[in-house]
C-alpha cells in the first residue's frame, strides 16, 4: 500500500511536468488550431535559462548552501527569470515564424514548426554543448520526516506545489481577466472575436508567452528534480505532453492538466509494476488508443467540421 502511494506521488510529480507543457500545446491549439511542435524545446530552453541564470541570481540572493528558507527567494527568482526569458522566446518565435504563415496551408506551418524545433535543438547543441550539464542545486533536497515508509522529497512537494499554484493562476487569468476572456473568445470563433474588436495578434502573442512561460517553469522544476540537462531533453517530454493534451481534449485547458497527470501516473505505474522497457511506448500507445476510440479527448467536445 505504501508503495502504491509512493508511486502515485512520483507519478503526480512527473505528471505535473507534462501538465505544464501540455497547457502550452493546448492553448496555442485553441487560438491557432495548430500544434506547436517546437514547444518541447521551449521547455529545454527554460531549463538552460535557469542553468545560466542561477549564478547571476546568487550574486543578489543568498545561496542555498545553508538549508532552510533562505534559499527560496533565490529559487523563485531563477524560476521567474527563466519563465520571463522563455515568454519572450515564445513571442519571438511566433512573430518571426508563425505569423507570416498565418494564412498558409496547415502542412506548411507544421513543417515550419518541425524546422523550428530542430533549429532550437541543434543550436542548443552548438551553444550549450551536446554533453549533459549539471543543474545547480537551487533548493536543498531532503526527505520529509515522519512519514514512515514513504519517501517524499522536498523537491517533489515543490514541484507539485508550484504546479498547483501555476494552474490556479492560469485559471484566474483565463477566466477572470479581459485578455483571458479574449483568448477563450478567439478559440471559440476567431472571426467573431475579431468582429468584436479583439486584437487577434496581441492575444496570440500573449497565448504564446503564457504557454512558453509554463513550459519554462516545467523545465526548471524538472531540472531541480533531475539535475542533468542536455539540449535534446525536450523531445520526448514534448511528445508525451502533446499526447497528454490530446488525451484531455486538445484546446481544453483543464483537460491538458488532467491528461498530463494521467500520463505521468500511467507511465510511473507501468515502469514500476510492469517493465521499464515500455516507458516511452506508453504515451504512443495512449495516443493511438485515444485517437481510435475518442479523438475528441476525455474532456473535449466533438467539433463538427463545417463544410
Amino acid at each position: 500500500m505504501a508503495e502504491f502511494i509512493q508511486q502515485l506521488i512520483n507519478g503526480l510529480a512527473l505528471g505535473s511536468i507534462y501538465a505544464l507543457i501540455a497547457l502550452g500545446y493546448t492553448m496555442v491549439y485553441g487560438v491557432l488550431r495548430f500544434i506547436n511542435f517546437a514547444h518541447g524545446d521551449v521547455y529545454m530552453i527554460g531549463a538552460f535559462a535557469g542553468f545560466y541564470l542561477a549564478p547571476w541570481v546568487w550574486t543578489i540572493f543568498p545561496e542555498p548552501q545553508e538549508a532552510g528558507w533562505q534559499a527560496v527567494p533565490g529559487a523563485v527568482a531563477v524560476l521567474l527569470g527563466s519563465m520571463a526569458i522563455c515568454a519572450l522566446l515564445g513571442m519571438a518565435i511566433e512573430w518571426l515564424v508563425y505569423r507570416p504563415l498565418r494564412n498558409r496551408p496547415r502542412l506548411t506551418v507544421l513543417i515550419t514548426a518541425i524546422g523550428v524545433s530542430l533549429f532550437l535543438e541543434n543550436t542548443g547543441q552548438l551553444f550549450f554543448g551536446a554533453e549533459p550539464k549539471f543543474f545547480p542545486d537551487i533548493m536543498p533536497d531532503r526527505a520529509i520526516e515522519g512519514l514512515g515508509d514513504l519517501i517524499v522529497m522536498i523537491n517533489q512537494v515543490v514541484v507539485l506545489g508550484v504546479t498547483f499554484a501555476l494552474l490556479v493562476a492560469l485559471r484566474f487569468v483565463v477566466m477572470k481577466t479581459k485578455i483571458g476572456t479574449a483568448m477563450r473568445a478567439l478559440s471559440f470563433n476567431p472571426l467573431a472575436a475579431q468582429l468584436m474588436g479583439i486584437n487577434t495578434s496581441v492575444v496570440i502573442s500573449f497565448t504564446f508567452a503564457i504557454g512558453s512561460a509554463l513550459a519554462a517553469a516545467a523545465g526548471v522544476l524538472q531540472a531541480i528534480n533531475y539535475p542533468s540537462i542536455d539540449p535534446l531533453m525536450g523531445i520526448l517530454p514534448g511528445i508525451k505532453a502533446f499526447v497528454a493534451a490530446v488525451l484531455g481534449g486538445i484546446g481544453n485547458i483543464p483537460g491538458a492538466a488532467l491528461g498530463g497527470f494521467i500520463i505521468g501516473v500511467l507511465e510511473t505505474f507501468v515502469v514500476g509494476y510492469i517493465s521499464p522497457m515500455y516507458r516511452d511506448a506508453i504515451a504512443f500507445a495512449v495516443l493511438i488508443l485515444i485517437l481510435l476510440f475518442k479523438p475528441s479527448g476525455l474532456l473535449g467536445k466533438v467539433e463538427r467540421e463545417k463544410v
Partner: protein
Amino acid sequence: MKNWPKSLLLAFALLAFLFSLMAERGLINDYYLDIILMIGVNIILGVGLNLVTGYTGQFSLGHAGFMAVGAYLAAAVTVFLGDDVTRIFGEGSVQTTGLYLLAMMIGGLGAALAGVIVGAPSLRLKGDYLAIVTLGFGEIIRVIIQNMEIIGGPRGFSVPVTPTNFFWTYLMAAICIYVVVLLVNSTYGRGFLMVADDEIAAEAMGINTTKYKVIAFVVGAFFAGIAGGLYVHFKQYIHPEGFNFLRSVDIVVIVILGGMGNTPGVIAAAVLLTILPEGLRYVAGWEVLPNWVRHVAQNRMILYSLLLITLMLTRPQGLFTFNRRLRQRLT
C-alpha cells in the same frame, strides 16, 4: 517528351551497364561510389514519400520505420538463409544474385505489410495528428527492432556480403520512378490528388479515399523497404538509431525541397541533399573559416532546419518546382 519514364528506364539501364563495368574494374573511387549509391537510395526514399506526402497529402513522419523494416528483413534473409541457399543450390554468382533479390523482395513486402498496419488506423486522421501518429509508429518500429536480440538489437546488425552496386541501385530507382509516375498519371493519380485537395469533395464524387490513401502508403512503404534492403547491402552494418525520427526528417526535407508532388524535383533534391553533407564536411575542414561557421557546417541539422523554415516562408513549393500549376497547388 512522351513516355519519358520508359526512356529514362532504358537510359538508366545503358548507363548502369557502362558504369558498373567501370566500377568492377575499380575505376571509381570507393568513397564516390558510396555517395552515388546513397544518392540512388535517397531517390527511392524521396520518390516513395513524395507519393504519400506530395501527391496524396498524407504527412508521414515515420518513413524511416519502413526503411528499417526493409533493411532488417533483407539483412535477416541474407544472414540466416544464406547458408541454406548455398546448401541447396550451390555456390555461384547466380545463386548470390538470386538470394539478394529474394532478400530485397522480402524486405519490400515486409515494409509494405508494415505500411498496411500503420496505414489502417492512421488514415482516418488528418494533418497534425497523422504526423504525430506516424512519428509514433516509426519510433515503435525502431523500439521493437532495438529489443529484438536475434537481429542484434542495440548492438546493430551486420551483413557479410555487399551485392549492392550501381546497377541494382539505379535499376530499383528507375523502377520506383517508373511505377510512381505511371500511378500518378493514371486514374489512381487523379484519386491521390483529389484526396490531397479536398477529401470531402472526393467522397462526394464517389471516390473511396481510404483505398487511395492505403495504396499510396503501401507503395511508398514498399519502396522504402527496397531502399532499406539496398542500403544494408552496401553499408554492411545497420543500427536502430539510424532509422529514427531524424532520418524520417531527412527524407521529408528531400520531399519538401523538391516540391511536394513534383517527382523530378524530388529526384534533384535527393541528389542535392546526399551531396550536401559531404560538401559541408569538406567545408568544415577549411581552417580559414571562423570556428562557429565550421561548427555549423558540421552540424548539418542546423542548416537543414533553417532551410526548412526559410523554404516554407519564402518558397513553399520547393526549390525545383518551375511548373505554375504545381506552384499554385502548394502556396
